[in-house]
């Protein structure tokens, strides 16, 4: 008897507490965002500025009342702590601390592991910086999205620029870091180059160790080979060291450098970079973005960032801006679709496809496979009196579509079908 009434009253209590409508979820007290970024290790050249940006953006969103009145709270994980620790910490944040959205990660190697885990945990995950095109091409995900371009347009845009501005080259050498990005980016570049210019001879493929401190032997070999073009998709300390050692020994005088990630090294390299090197920015990211630089919002962000960190923003910072822009946009869209009520995570995931948002470059959109479509900025180094380092001149901003494998196709298969002249495309050119 006692037992029965106990169960009955418990049932009544639960019934009383249950929400009236299935979708009218209560607004949470805060929106918890988990962010993986490098606080240690070589990639902290991207991770630390991006973390500053994340803190700035959260402060800014919270100052205007949060997202639909819900303040944002950030939780950081150090990607440099090692994959095992990272995955454990990721799982703990999602399962125990109840993260609403995760931003992961910088490293493609980490994204490879995180994507299936996020899917498994059913948590919305924005791949906010990693480049590998394979993840969303090889598998279908319901909860994993990428809020910036992938390796394919990021490599093809500098190649298109090279083909247009220096079509006379006959030989090319590559010096990439010996890890996933260095290898994958070369695979894409090489396949596309072969389809467009089968006459170009690749005279050396050099893959020095990730984090190598010395490229003397590589520089000597390149001096002996005298290739017309030297490609390097390296970044951070590796790129800085390579550029300096190449410059000190006069390699710039004999070869044209193509450096698709060098936007992130310009401020550190000062005048170590020559004029006329082709540089890219993994998207249309540049603190002197020709279409945005007079925009007050753009200027204000760059000034605030400079005041906070002493540096101008680099592409990883703008990638973080895009992740936040996508976050705000998707909540707005899902809330509107839900009749003004706070959405469930499934509704957020649904709202991602076709989402339109804008960071501090051109507007972006998310395709049905979860991949964002993002314009690509490429230019040449030049000198400016306003800055004590090289700036990007002769900028072209490329539309993303012609440079991306369509939904459902794998980049390398897609590139394999390129007709000659396929990459004879121009971006929007800018004088400056």
């Amino acid at each position, binding site marked *: 008897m006692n037992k029965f009434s106990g169960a009955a009253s418990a049932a009544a209590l639960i019934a009383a507490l249950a929400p009236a409508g299935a979708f009218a979820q209560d607004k949470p007290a805060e929106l918890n965002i988990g962010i993986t970024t490098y606080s*240690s290790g070589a990639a902290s050249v991207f991770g*630390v500025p991006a973390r500053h940006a994340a803190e700035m953006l959260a402060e800014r969103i919270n100052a205007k009342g949060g997202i639909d009145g819900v303040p944002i709270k950030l939780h950081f994980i150090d990607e440099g702590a090692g994959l095992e620790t990272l995955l454990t910490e990721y799982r703990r944040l999602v399962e125990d601390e109840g993260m609403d959205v995760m931003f992961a990660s910088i490293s493609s190697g980490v994204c490879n592991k995180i994507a299936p885990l996020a899917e498994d945990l059913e948590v919305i995950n924005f791949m906010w910086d990693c480049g590998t095109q394979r993840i969303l091409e090889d598998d279908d995900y319901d909860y994993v999205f990428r809020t910036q371009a992938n390796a394919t347009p990021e490599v093809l845009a500098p190649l298109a620029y090279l083909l247009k501005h220096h079509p006379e080259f006959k030989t090319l050498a590559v010096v990439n870091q010996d890890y996933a990005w260095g290898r994958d980016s070369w695979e894409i570049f090489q396949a596309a180059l072969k389809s467009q210019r089968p006459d170009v001879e690749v005279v050396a493929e050099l893959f020095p160790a990730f984090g190598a*401190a010395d490229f003397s032997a590589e520089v000597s070999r390149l*001096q002996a080979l005298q290739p017309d073009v030297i490609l390097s998709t390296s970044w951070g300390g*590796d790129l800085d060291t390579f550029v300096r050692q190449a410059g000190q*020994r006069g390699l710039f005088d004999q070869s044209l450098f193509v450096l698709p990630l060098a936007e992130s090294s310009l401020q550190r390299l000062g005048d170590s970079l020559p004029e006329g090197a082709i540089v890219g920015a993994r998207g249309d990211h540049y603190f002197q973005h020709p279409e945005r630089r007079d925009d007050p919002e753009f200027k204000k962000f760059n000034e605030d960032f400079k005041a906070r960190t002493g540096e101008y923003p680099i592409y990883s910072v703008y990638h973080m801006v895009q992740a936040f822009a996508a976050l705000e946009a998707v909540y707005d869209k899902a809330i509107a679709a839900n009749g003004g009520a706070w959405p469930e995570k499934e509704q957020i995931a649904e709202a991602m496809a076709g989402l339109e948002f804008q960071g501090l470059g051109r507007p972006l959109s998310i395709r049905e496979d979860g991949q964002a479509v993002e314009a690509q900025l490429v230019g040449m180094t030049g000198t400016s009196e306003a800055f004590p380092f090289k700036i990007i001149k002769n900028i072209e901003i490329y539309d993303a579509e012609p440079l991306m494998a369509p939904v459902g196709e794998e980049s390398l298969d897609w590139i394999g079908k390129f007709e000659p002249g396929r990459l004879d495309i121009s971006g929007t050119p800018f004088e400056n």
Partner: protein
Amino acid sequence: MTMNIAALALLDGLAYASLLFLVAVGLTLIFGVLGILNVAHGSLYAIGAYATATLGQWLVAQGFNPWLTFPGMIVAAVAVGVLLGGLIERLLLQRIYSKDPVLQLLVTFAVFMILENLQRMIWGVQPYFMSTPLTVLGNVRLLGINYTAYQVLFLPAAALVVLFTLRYFLRHTNMGAQILAVTEDREAATAIGINASRVYFMTFVIGACFAALGGALATPTTSLVTGMGANMIVLSFAVAATAGLGQIEGAAISALIIGIARSFAVYLSPEIEVIMPYLIMVLVLLVRPNGLFGKETVRKI
């Protein structure tokens, strides 16, 4: 053409080997005398480099003669070696000489982790550089290839100076004789009045100075990044182990073998460049488990 390649690879290998030797010699000296494999050696290398960059940048910014960055490298290296090395030996190592080698390894590893973070706190994560010494020495043209005089002339010369000074110090000075005596038999040396604690302290500080000097001399050629210490400790361990731990001249020779093999790999088979040092170490240890010059049981420096 083939002769040319061989000559180029030799020159590059020589420059690289000189830096490797400078770091490995400190590691091997400390192991030879104290019997401790000092993982924190990598941090001393990195901090020596950062201190050099800071001092060098300051000297240049103050408008001093750029040649002053050369003595600046030595000053920074000695300061780091004496201060940090001295503190590590006095506060930590001195208490654990009689303990299990595994514990000693763990303690130096812990110091390494602490110093890595300390270095991040002080210098941040953005790459640093200070290439003034390299710029003032200029380039030399050999076989149609531009080399920096710093790398192909100055570094090998510095390595030779260190090698011969160390040899002279150990064989022809009183302190050197004491170090050799303690290495041979600590108890007997103590019995004839040698202060073994002091010998250990001096040896560790000297070894630490070499690590910092390696970092200081590497500074002009590279970017200073977080994690550079970890890379270097692994490499210099490969050098020391190939030679046989505790072998100073051996370290010079194995640094040369590894440096030259690595640069040959860049020309002949770039794919294996990355694993070259370890490939050599494994091949040598398979044939001679105590290293090229290591002797069984008897430990000597």
